[in-house]
């Protein structure tokens, strides 16, 4: 009775969505999946806690959802595409959620993205054959 180790386990700040996480977070993700239906979205927005109860979420899971604590939700087995369906109810985009998980503001997160991509045009020129724009 042991979950297998993986060669990606040591990637820092990363929660690869494997069987262990999927099994753990099944009910969280199941609830989020129900938001594909607009009627369920309306029901959740009327009373988030009561809707969590319908999916047998425990207090810890419920608190993380109500607090939009996405890092905790990742630890509890939430998958990012399902967490994105929850983020919307907190008025948050995926980018806002990413910023929160990185413990920075959304503006700082956008700067991080720009910084990571900095200088890409000169690299395209060096390789050659790319659309210039």
């Amino acid at each position, binding site marked *: 009775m042991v979950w297998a180790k993986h060669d990606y386990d040591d990637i*820092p700040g*990363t929660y*690869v969505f494997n069987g262990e996480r999927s099994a753990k977070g099944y009910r969280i993700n199941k609830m989020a999946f129900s938001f594909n239906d607009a009627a369920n979205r309306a029901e959740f927005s009327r009373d988030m806690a009561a809707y969590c109860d319908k999916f047998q979420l425990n207090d810890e899971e419920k608190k993380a959802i109500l607090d939009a604590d996405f890092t905790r939700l990742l630890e509890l087995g939430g998958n990012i595409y399902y967490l994105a369906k929850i983020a919307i109810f907190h008025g948050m985009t995926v980018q806002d959620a990413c910023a929160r998980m990185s413990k920075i503001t959304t503006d700082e997160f956008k700067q991080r993205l*720009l910084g990571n991509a900095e200088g*890409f045009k000169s690299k395209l020129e060096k390789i050659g054959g*790319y659309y210039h724009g």
Partner: protein
Amino acid sequence: MARLIGGISSSHIPAIGIAIAKKLQNEPYWKRFFDGYDAVREWLNKVKPDLAIVVYNDHGLNFFLDQVPTFAIGAAASYETADEGWGLKTQGSVEGDEQLSWHLIESLVSDEFDITICQKMLVDHGFVVPMTLLWGEDGPWPVKGIPLAVNTVQHPVPSAQRCYRLGQALGRAIASYPDDMKVVIVGTGGMSHQLQGERAGIIDVDFDLECIEKIIHDPEWLTRISNSEIMRRAGTEGIETIMWLVMRGALGDNIKTLHKHYHAPVSNTGAGVVLLENLAAIA
């Protein structure tokens, strides 16, 4: 005989769909990205394919985690586009081709790709965003479509090598279809990005550009890299780039690069576009 006339790779970032719906294509943030698709649209308008096979991953719309097929293909007369709960604009339905779908399925299964068969399939932004980029937002689209979903969400996901070989099997399947029609294949997703954890926000331009060049000239290169290594460099969601290999595998060796485009960041992602003509099918 059906002819696979070309392959296209494209990101399928949901923010692109939102930008199109809000008509932001000429805003400074978006203009260079969108302009990079003009050449692909011109080519499509010239060659007028009859059908597009779109390789993408479902994001919790058609498949929940209770049943996760590694590879799944549509076999329906039409496919409904739907919103996966994010408030994205839907595009009505896409016309399918049941006969070609079942031919592909028979050929793939006899080729030892035991693909999941879907006579009903809702398609999400992974399918809709590339179709919209290539054929416009004022549907109905002037091509039929067949969705081919690859699991890139629930690990273990297939290896880059398995995706490449699926593409090769798909190429053989298309070439053996007796109807005279023109097919294009679209490999979507990626490139580098990570949407989760403290490491969210990864963009690795060097890896993305190496992927583009190698996928064109030496696709076996990516098949030798493990999924863990791809995630380490390109981010957990960057693993989607393996789906480009399904497109590339289908084309074979006799190709001509008609267009290359890269822009970053697009939302949280490095976004690449490649248009490859299949000279073997044009001749």
